[in-house]
């Protein structure tokens, strides 16, 4: 009796495994339109309404389970998304910074080409520190004496003159900006005749410059460009190569001009948003013009 049961059990097992293997082999071997595939499609067709009905009936159960599952995962997901958002924000900030730097470098290259700065052996430097005071008249850059930087060398930015090197260490330098009260620059207005004067910061307004010592009969208009004169003017032993843009005339009151020989100038360089500058390490490349006395 027991042997008979065992034999029957084993026979059923072998039969089932054999049928499964035959089905597997036949299904795997036949083409998509074969009999087994057709039977399968037929059964799927018959059962699909049942499945659809069951799906509709079980929708509330699924929704409730989905709600709990979603709630369970929500906290983890929020933490992950916050982390991801933080990383993306950092990436965006880096890309924005790179974009700004790229734009500044492009402008700097354009300026270099327009005024022929390459002869002055420019050394590019990143701004690594700045004067936090309201006057904002000094910045620190990452090029020093090891790069050939020395005191009194002119510094230009993407839009024009920035200032002059005041202190140098082997790896960094401090630049005094043109808005500092100690800076005086021999400048020329591009008004057709090249009227020249001395550019100084405006007292009480660090973002404005005053071009003084102009000829009283000069015909200077607003928005005319002011550039470096590039030679000694009076007491100035000029450090700056010629034709570097400094600013534009912002207020050319003819009465003031006639009485005191002054006009207001707005710097072309945005001194508060400098990232990259160039230090002209050879401001007098063998030209006689820089030391000419008028």
């Amino acid at each position, binding site marked *: 009796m027991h042997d008979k049961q065992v034999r*029957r*059990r084993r026979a*059923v*097992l072998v039969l*089932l*495994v054999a*049928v*499964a*293997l*035959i*089905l*597997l*082999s*036949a*299904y*795997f071997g036949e083409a998509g339109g074969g009999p*087994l595939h057709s039977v*399968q*499609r037929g*059964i*799927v067709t018959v*059962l699909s309404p*049942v*499945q659809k009905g*069951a*799906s509709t009936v*079980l929708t509330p*159960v*699924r929704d409730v*389970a*989905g709600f709990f*599952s979603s709630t369970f995962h929500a906290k983890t997901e929020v933490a992950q998304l916050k982390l991801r958002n933080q990383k993306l924000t950092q990436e965006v900030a880096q890309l924005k910074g790179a974009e700004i730097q790229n734009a500044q470098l492009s402008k700097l290259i354009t300026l270099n080409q327009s005024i022929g700065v390459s002869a002055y052996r420019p050394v590019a430097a990143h701004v690594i520190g700045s004067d936090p005071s309201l006057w904002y008249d000094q910045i620190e850059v990452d090029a020093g004496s090891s790069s050939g930087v020395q005191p009194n060398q002119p510094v230009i930015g993407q839009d024009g003159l920035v200032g002059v090197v005041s202190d140098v260490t082997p790896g960094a330098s401090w630049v005094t900006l043109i808005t500092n009260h100690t800076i005086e620059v021999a400048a020329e207005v591009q008004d057709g005749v090249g009227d020249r004067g001395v550019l100084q910061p405006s007292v009480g307004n660090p973002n404005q410059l005053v071009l003084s010592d102009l000829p009283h009969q000069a015909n200077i208009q607003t928005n005319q460009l002011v550039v470096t004169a590039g030679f000694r003017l009076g007491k100035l032993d000029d450090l700056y190569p010629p034709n570097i843009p400094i600013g534009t005339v912002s207020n050319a009151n003819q009465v003031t001009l006639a009485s005191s020989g002054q006009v207001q100038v707005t710097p072309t360089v945005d001194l508060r948003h400098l990232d990259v500058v160039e230090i002209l390490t050879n401001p007098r490349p063998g030209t006689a013009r820089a030391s000419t006395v008028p």
Partner: protein
Amino acid sequence: MSVSWSFVIRVLAVGFLAVVIQVAAVSQISIFGVSADLSPLVVMSVGLLAGSTIGAMMGFGMGLLVDMMLVQTLGVTSLLYIAIGYWSGRLRELRDPAHELVPLGVGAAATALAGIGMALIQFLLGVDAPVSLLLLQQILLTVLVNSLIALPVYAAVRRALNPALPEDPRRRRRRRYTTGGLSPLKRPSEGLGGSVRSVSR
């Protein structure tokens, strides 16, 4: 062991319902990033309740239905579920485990066998199965989730099949022991009277 028509109908209904519920609802509920798989648990439960032969047949039938409804290669799931049903039934026939947590352990083993076996067969059939740590992680998580629902599934299957389960000498004997029946370890003279005394105390 004789099988009644009532039992056959109940087994077929349980298998069909389990596959339909699995496909229509359970597979769309994500727990720990995976879905529970009722089918191996139901096959395991039937094997534990009704024995190896019926377990293997149930495994074949449910596997075939799953392959049909999911439009998979016919025979693959059947092959795995035959093993699960037969092995569960043999466990019952050889050991007759009575501990309440047995379905949990057997369910976990059945799910692991189904997951790993399916990956192996797919790999052998040349399907580009993603054999990676992620797959192992998914199998482990499915085993975990199935272990959590193994006991309720076993209880539901037992409730559905119990009225029509084929009479089994082992179960009859165990029932007699637990209800104070005649034990082969006791002499006939001590049997019933001792039990009655202990109950009456």
